[in-house]
Structure formats: C-alpha cells, structure tokens
C-alpha cells in the first residue's frame, strides 16, 4: 500500500473491531465511523468513462424561458447553466433556474397515470393505470360532455407556456371555457394599460435611458418586471443605476429594494390611487404638462358636453380650434386645439377633457393625501417636482438619426395593481406620465415589448353589456363590463348561479399545471366549486392539493424534458425565438404535455379535420404552406416544431434549436422601438385621458339594476374613495398585504427542496414596534384574523412572526409561496395568505380582478 488513507485505515480496523462499533452505538454515537467504509461511488482504478454532451434547452419555471445549456454526463443531466447567446439571461440563471435540475430526479413526482378510487374532498387514494386506460377514461368524459353542451367543459392552465398549443389551439378546438390566472397576477394593470394607451403590459421603464424611476409597490431587486424575469430586469436596472438613475420606491414594505433604492415612500396599503391623483395635481399646479403630446396624441382636447359625453358631429369627436375660435373635428387640417377653457357650441356648453381633468383633480392636493397615504405632503410634492424636472418636457434626442421625444422618467409596477382600486390606480399612474409626455418617449414608460398596439384599446371601449344569462365568469355582464376572468369569482358564482344570472353548471374540468386551491383567494369557496364537477383531470408533474382532493385522473407531465415553445427572447431591445428541447427522455412514465394533448384530442374526436386541433395549430403557430400539417395525419411535437421552424425561415428546422440557441435574432430598430417614431405615431391611437366608455358602462349598469358597489368605480376619470377594507371594525387594526420571493414561482418551484432550503418557512413580516406593542416577540407564533367588511366573515391562521424594520407599523405581510400540505417536500411550512383573503364584493375590482389586501388583527397564539 503506497499510501495509508483514512478510509483504508478504517476498513482494516473495522474488520477486526465489530465490537468496538457496537459499543460506539451504546455510547450514543451513530454509524458515523462505520459508514466511512462506504464511499459514494466505487472508485475504479484509472479515469472513469465519461461522455459529456451539451443540450440547448430553456428554463421551465420562470416566465421568460431563459436559455439553458444542459450538461449531460453519461445520459444524466448534471448541471444547468445559462446560455450566453440569449440576451435575456446572458449566460446566467436565477436560483430557480439552477435548482430545477432536481425536478428531473424528484421521486415524489407523479410517476405514472393515476386513477382515483375514493371519494373527493379528501386525500386521494390512487391506483396506477396505463396511459391507454387513462387517456380513454379522460377522452370519453370530454367526448360525452362536448356532445351534451361544450360550455360544460372548463379548462384552466397555470402561467402561460406555449400558448399556441394550449390556449390558442386546444381551447378553440375543444370549445372549452377557459379560466384565466391573470386576475390573481396583474391583469388590472394590463386592462388599465390596454384601455388607456393601447399597450399590453403593466408598467415598465425604458431602462436604457431612464434617469428617474418611480418603483411602485414592487420588490425591485427580487422579482422582475411584468415582461421580464428577475434576471433581465435587474441586469438592466443595475446598468441604469450605473449611469446614475435615481430610484424612488412607493411601497408599504421596503423589501429587497433596500440597497438599490434612494428614497422610500412607505404609503398605506390601498392608498395608491390617492397618491397618483395627487401626483397629477402637483404636476399640473407646477406646470409640468407636455401640451404638445396631449394635444396631438391623446383625447385631452376632445370636447365634453355637460352630460359628460363627448361632443360628436357626424360621429367624429370635436376639439375647440383656437385658430378659428370654433369647434372642429379633431383631425381637421390646421387646427390648434384648446386644452383649457369653456366654450359654447350651439346650445351646448362644452370643455376640453383636459379642462375637466384639471377641475377633477383640483381636490387632490398633497395636504389632502397626507392622511390617506400616510405620507407627509411635502414628500409627495417633492416626488412630483423631481419627476417634473427630470422629465425635461419639450426635450428631444436623436437616436440612430431618428429624432424622438426625450423624457427620462419611468415607472415600474406589476402585482401591486391587484388591489380593490387597482385598475383606476394604474390608470391614474399612467395619466401622470401622460402629463409628462413620457408614454413611449425615450427614457419613459414602456408597458409592452411587442412593439404594436393591442386590440383591447378598441374592444374595451366597445363592450356591449348583455342581459343574463351569462357564462360562468360573467363575460360582458352587468357586473363586470371589463372582466379579467377571476376563478375565485367563478367559484363564488357557482355557490348561487341564479343570483348572477348563470343558468348552467359545468361538469368536466381540465386543469393543466395549475393549483387553484393554493393559487387563488378564498380556498373555502374554491373547494365547494371543485367538488361540484362530475369529472376532473389534472395534467401536472406533481400531486397538487387540487389534484389530490378533487382529480379523478392525474396525467404525469414532464418538466424540462420535452419539446415546448416557441418563446421570445425579447428583452425590450432585442428579439428572437427559442424552444425547449429535451436533454433527457421524459422521466418515469411522464410525457410531454403537447403529446398528451394530441392523444386526448384524437381520442375525443377533435384532432383531425377542419376546426380540429391540427387545424387550429396550423393557425396558432402561423404555419405557412408547404409547412402546414395535414389535417388527417397525426403529428408529434418534434415534427410540429420542425414545421414551425422551417415556416419561420429557419432552414435547418428543429435541429437548429437542438444545436444552437436563438433563432432569427434581431435588434429592434429605433424607428420600431419607440412608438412616437411609428407611422403613424403611437399606431394612430389617441391615448385615453378621458374614459367616456367607463362612464357609459356605469350608466348602463345602473339602468340594468346593478348594485352600486359593482359600478361605483366606473368613472371617466379615476376617482378616490376609501377601499372597502377600511370599513372593517377598528380592532382589525393592521393591513395584510402579500409578497413573492425570487426563490419561487408558482407550482413549478414550490415543491423544489433546494429552493425550499433557501426560504423554508412562512413568516408574518411585522414591524418590531407594532409587535412589541402587542407583546409579540420575534419568532412568536401568533393568530392572524382577517375580517370581511361586507359579510362580517372572519378567517384565522396561525403563523410565526418575523421582525422587519422596513415595513409600516400598520402593515403586515405574508408570502404567497407557502400553505401546501400534500407534497412531502413542502408540508408544515406555514399557511397561505390566500386563506385569509376574500373574494367577491369589496375584495374584487371593477374589472373582476382579485384584491390581495385585507384588514386583520393579530393576537398571541
């Protein structure tokens, strides 16, 4: 023996000292010294046989499908690394991107198709079935219910992946009613943007040029924007900080923004609308108004009659022309419209919308807002003044030879719009940036990366409010003319469908990568709702709470190990496409989601022929001849991507993505990047300062007998009122808000033990002074009780307290990533805040969007 290593020494000793090992046990030691006899892997003499290959694929957890290089050694994935060719992640991954490797090998995945053998509403007892049996079982139910009435089939998917395959092909082919997740995410912000400026997104800055960022309610360094994952958002944020961008954070809790915010405005939860109305008040008072933009590209100069409707002649909106001192069509040649003043046209007293806005916000002074927002008047005034100065109204910049308006002031916001007055608060925020002329200006507000306007600008303005009966999510109803499709509300409606004018009860539910019981507010109502379905199938890699309690059949889906996509690599400035390719075969008996859908459609009888799944895929993927699929030939996922790639001009087809990263990479030209440079500018839209249709909806709702609390926020300008939660009795003296963490993202990450290790437990974040006043110490278990100000219902959970100085003393916060009880990895980690939130009146917005704010009290457990 050349060298006596510790292992070989113990091995020798161990052979003769069995008694010694036993006596160690008696002394209380464990098998420690004996176990050293067993190295992890037998070491072959010489070098182990290693074959390594790199597979190009994408992240499966986050929203933006960052490109990944999967290192595969001897057939096993040993590491996931960022791919430097994708502009969104530039060779890096977030903790989720790294940790998802363990999902390939998660022994608690659903490993085979399962069929329930016990009753619902309790933990499932499962028997393993063959794929053939499971698919037949599911497709027979789908076939049966479609023959009866397609409305009885309901489909719900978690956050979007590969929409062309699921949302845009399976839904129209099957005729299922699609339930959304957005009403729990940020859809109020989307609706406000679509309605006001015609962009599909929440609020995002032009980081490349922004110098002053208002960070509204956003965990700026631990979350990411609505269009980007954390990783890209922060790379751009840090670059902007490096150029000297100032960050002002408006948030009851400072959160991760800590080292990367220059000024913190801890406002009261639910007061955001008041803040933004006041901001406009300050901007107008101080004269920070981009008159040129407002006149040319908004409806600010449109004349409003005394009844609140726009003056129209031959269907055309009118402005007051200061050249001829007369009303003229807004698009008449040579007009210079007035923004202010009152005029007479015939017998009609009229004023420009801007004049009406100015009058409307005169009441919202910083002093008025002080108590409502919990912020000193001078600090609100200071933000307004700084925004006004930094906006440099009137300034221009030339980029690549294109002259553009330059307004280096931005705003970032996302989930914060899910509060009772969120739609109007977001609209008010946009309006303040409209005053500054910062919409789509260089350095200003850019909500969408798609570089085109959204159809909802028009369709949300032209909603035809119907009389009952309504569908299950009350589309075009007298309750929610603008409607983000909220599953908690669907659950509540199902408790008493007649009350809401719904005359049917769905029977078959398909859930794909979603866990309604944990994801959505009001677990109690959701349980009742799920219990009403005659048949439920869940497609998921894991046994979710929803599946374990309510599924009849669970079909195991693969994680990364499949073909899926396509995804964009748009980081706001560059674009291109990627798809997910499998670095291994689907693990256990799981299958790629797309293959599962193809089989289900075939067996349920709507795969082939016109309007079948294949036909819809040809459309949703935009396949051109000769790459369109035959309507009578069953495709597989790889073949479909091959056709899509070739149809998109990628000659190599799907092989391209198996060997490289981004296809069709491009940098946006300046003329495409900024909407003022488009032809016509802003896509020809007149941004909607005045929401005439909101007023119209409110009046139609009144005529149709809609209760006041559904219609009171349908006002043409955002109008402040106290949130409903403020009328809870005074003993409910704290606001509960909720938050998310960089380590988690929905069902795909919550059961991951490596991520759980970083943030193992739920805590109620609480200011130490507020806690001490209630005799609560750091780490104490307490009872949190929420109260519904309308129904007086109360709900309680027990949770541990964590002191946090960076939170308002009247506010507490809980994370959304806990509360699971089925998967062994995530049991006993603390409750979900969704068990404390309410749905329905007072806790749902005018757009049917969920509010994640409620008044609570805390007592020692």
């Amino acid at each position: 023996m050349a060298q006596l290593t510790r292992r070989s020494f113990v091995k020798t000793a161990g052979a003769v000292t069995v008694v010694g090992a036993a006596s160690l046990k008696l002394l209380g030691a464990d098998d420690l010294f004996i176990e050293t006899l067993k190295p992890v892997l037998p070491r072959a003499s010489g070098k182990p046989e290693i074959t390594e290959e790199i597979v190009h694929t994408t992240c499966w957890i986050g929203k933006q499908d960052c490109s990944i290089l999967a290192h595969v050694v001897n057939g096993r994935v040993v590491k996931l690394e960022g791919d430097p060719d994708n502009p969104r992640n530039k060779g890096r991954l977030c903790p989720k991107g790294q940790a998802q490797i363990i999902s390939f090998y998660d022994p608690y995945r659903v490993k085979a198709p399962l069929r329930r053998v016990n009753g619902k509403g309790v933990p499932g007892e499962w028997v393993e079935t063959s794929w053939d049996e499971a698919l037949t079982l599911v497709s027979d139910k789908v076939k049966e219910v479609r023959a009866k009435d397609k409305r009885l089939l309901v489909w719900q998917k978690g956050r979007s992946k590969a929409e062309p395959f699921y949302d845009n092909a399976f839904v129209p082919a099957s005729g299922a009613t699609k339930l959304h997740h957005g009403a729990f995410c940020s859809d109020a912000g989307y609706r406000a943007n679509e309605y006001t400026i015609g962009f599909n997104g929440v609020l995002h800055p032009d980081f490349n040029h922004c110098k002053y960022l208002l960070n509204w309610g956003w965990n700026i360094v631990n979350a990411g924007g609505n269009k980007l994952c954390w990783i890209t958002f922060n790379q751009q944020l840090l670059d902007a900080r490096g150029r000297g961008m100032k960050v002002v954070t408006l948030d009851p809790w400072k959160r991760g923004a800590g080292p990367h915010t220059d000024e913190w405005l801890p406002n009261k939860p639910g007061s955001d609308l008041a803040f933004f109305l006041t901001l406009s008040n300050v901007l107008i008072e101080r004269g920070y108004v981009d008159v040129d933009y407002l006149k040319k590209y908004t409806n600010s100069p449109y004349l409003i009659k005394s009844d609140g409707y726009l003056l129209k002649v031959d269907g055309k909106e009118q402005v007051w022309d200061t050249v001829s001192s007369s009303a003229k069509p807004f698009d008449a040649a040579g007009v210079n419209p007035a923004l202010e003043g009152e005029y007479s046209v015939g017998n009609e007293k009229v004023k420009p919308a801007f004049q009406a806005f100015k009058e409307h916000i005169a009441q919202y002074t910083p002093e008025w807002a002080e108590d409502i927002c919990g912020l000193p008047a001078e600090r609100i005034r200071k933000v307004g003044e700084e925004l006004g100065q930094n906006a440099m109204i009137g300034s221009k910049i030339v980029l690549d030879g294109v002259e553009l308006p330059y307004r280096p002031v931005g705003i970032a916001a996302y989930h914060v719009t899910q509060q009772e007055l969120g739609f109007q608060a977001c609209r008010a925020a946009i309006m303040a940036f409209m005053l500054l002329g910062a919409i789509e200006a260089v350095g200003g507000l850019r909500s969408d990366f798609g570089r085109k306007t959204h159809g909802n600008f028009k369709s949300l303005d032209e909603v035809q409010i119907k009389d009952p009966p309504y569908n299950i999510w009350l589309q075009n109803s007298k309750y929610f003319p603008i409607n983000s499709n909220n599953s908690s509300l669907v659950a509540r409606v199902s408790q008493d469908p007649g009350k809401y004018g719904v005359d049917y009860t769905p029977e078959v539910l398909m859930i794909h990568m979603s866990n309604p019981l944990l994801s959505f507010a009001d677990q109690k109502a959701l349980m009742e709702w799920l219990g009403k379905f005659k048949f439920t199938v869940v497609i998921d890699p894991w046994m979710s709470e929803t599946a374990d309690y309510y599924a009849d059949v669970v079909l195991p889906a693969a994680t990364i190990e499949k073909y899926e996509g396509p995804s964009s690599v748009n980081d706001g400035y560059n674009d291109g496409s990627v798809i997910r390719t499998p670095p291994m075969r689907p693990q256990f008996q799981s299958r790629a989601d797309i293959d599962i859908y193809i089989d289900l459609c075939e067996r349920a009888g709507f795969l082939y022929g016109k309007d079948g799944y294949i036909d819809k895929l040809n459309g949703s993927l935009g396949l051109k001849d000769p790459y369109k699929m035959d309507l009578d030939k069953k495709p597989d996922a790889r073949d479909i991507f091959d056709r899509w790639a070739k149809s998109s001009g990628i000659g190599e087809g799907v092989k391209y993505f198996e060997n490289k990263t981004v296809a069709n990479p491009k940098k946006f030209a300046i003329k495409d990047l900024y909407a003022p440079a488009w032809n016509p500018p802003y896509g020809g839209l007149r941004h909607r300062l005045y929401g005439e249709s909101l007023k119209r909806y409110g009046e139609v709702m009144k005529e149709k007998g809609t209760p006041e609390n559904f219609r009171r926020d349908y006002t043409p300008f955002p109008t402040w009122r106290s949130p409903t939660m403020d009328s809870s009795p005074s003993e409910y003296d704290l606001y509960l808000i909720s938050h998310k963490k960089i380590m988690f993202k929905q069902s795909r990450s919550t059961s991951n033990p490596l991520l759980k290790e970083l943030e193992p437990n739920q805590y109620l974040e609480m200011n130490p002074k507020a806690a001490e006043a209630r005799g609560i110490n750091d780490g104490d278990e307490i009872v949190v009780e929420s109260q519904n100000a309308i129904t007086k219902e109360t709900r309680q959970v027990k949770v541990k307290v964590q002191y946090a100085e960076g939170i308002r003393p009247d506010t507490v916060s809980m994370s959304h990533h806990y509360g699971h009880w089925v998967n062994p990895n995530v049991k006993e980690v603390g409750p979900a805040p969704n068990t404390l939130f309410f749905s329905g009146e007072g806790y749902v917005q005018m757009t049917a969007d969920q509010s994640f704010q409620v008044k609570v009290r805390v007592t020692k457990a």
Partner: protein
Amino acid sequence: MVKYAMAIDLDRCMGCRACMEACKIENNTGRNIFWMFVFKQESGEYPNTTTNYMPRPCMHCDNAPCVKVCPVGARFKSETGAVLTDFDRCVGCRYCEVSCPYGVNYFNWREPADNQYYHWGKGEAEGKYGTADIRTLANGSISPYRNPTLDEPHGAEKRTVAGGGHYVGVIEKCTFCVQRTDKGLDPACVANCPVSVYTFGDLDDPNSSISKLLASRSSFRLLEETNTHPRVYYLGTPMPLEHRKHLENISV
C-alpha cells in the same frame, strides 16, 4: 505562477442567492451545506432602515489558520492559492472548523444518501404516486445530478479535492471550484451571478480583470486584523456591524 483571487462588489449584489444554488449543484453539497453563503441583513429603525447583502465564500487565506491546525495535512494551500481539502486524508477532527474565523467549513454528519434532500438511496418515495425504482434513477449516483468528474484528482497536486458530500465524517468547504479552474473556467458562483457581482482571476497577471479592478477601486477584506491575508476582496458598502438583524431565515 497563477494566483487566484476573488472580488465581490457589494453595491451590485441583489441578495438572490443564485450563487448559493449554482455552487450547491456544481459541487453536490448536501442539505444545509452552503460553501457560498449570502447574508441578508437589515439595520436601523423604521423608516430609516438599510438593507445589506453580503456573499461569503471561503477566503482562501494566504495565512490560513485551518491549514496550520490540520493534524494530517488534509487541508493545504494549493499551488494556485486555493485552500483545499484532501478528502482521502481528512480524519474529521474539525480543528479547521474551530480555527477558521469566517465559518466556512461544513462537516458531513450524514451518510451521502441521507445528506441530500431526497433519499434516493432508500427509495422511500418509490410507491408514492406510481411506482419506479428510485435507486436506479441515475445508476445509483447520489445525488442523481452528481458530476462524476468530481471524483477525479484535481489541481496541480492531483489529490481528491473537488466537490462535496463524498463521505460521512469529512469536512468540506469552497474550493474556488478547482474542477472548473483546472479547465480555465470561473468558479460556479462567479460564472452564474446574474448581475456580475463577482470578478475572479489571477492577481499575478497585471492585465487580468481582477488586477485592474482592485487597482481602480478601493477594497477591503474581512477580519484583516486577524492576519489571515484573505484572497477574497470586497468592494462597495460594507455591512453594518451593529443593530443588525438577519432578513429571512435559512434552514441551517
């Protein structure tokens, strides 16, 4: 002679802990073992609070106390300056752990199968949600994503120094990813940091990015007064030493 060092820009850190995850998977370290650790702390009182994030790898000291106390020569200063552990020599006395002022050593209390989050070796989950032989999932490798190259000899000294979780009863810590630096790659934490907090390279090369960075910006090292001569340099705002509180817990 190459002289590896690391610089950490505290003004860029976002506290996401992606480096901890990248390190963990690259090196196959076990439950609650973090060769790279990011502290997240809050100080001050509402509303005047500050938040700080501070990554802490092994300092790879030039005057490393852990090397001096190791009774069997398992802990050694390698040719590149990385402080490494020879897993074949370590007897698990934990003197290094006691002597280190930075708390970077982790002892393997559990056997490899128990040391990881899933008990792949025991197949506890085999019958749950459908059957599968968990033990054969990755030809018996524990963890299943363990890279077999970790078992090869590494460094100029060609000793068993890479990766973690080899055996119960040995100490382990950050190696500056010797298996990566051998190939000319940056350590996993450095390569993965989404916001480029880290700079890694050769201090003996005046043109390396780390030499240039340290020449252009002021830096400090942790506990310099203990005369350990760390190879890890910090740039930016130091973490306050008083009235601070850990933000968010971790299962250690």
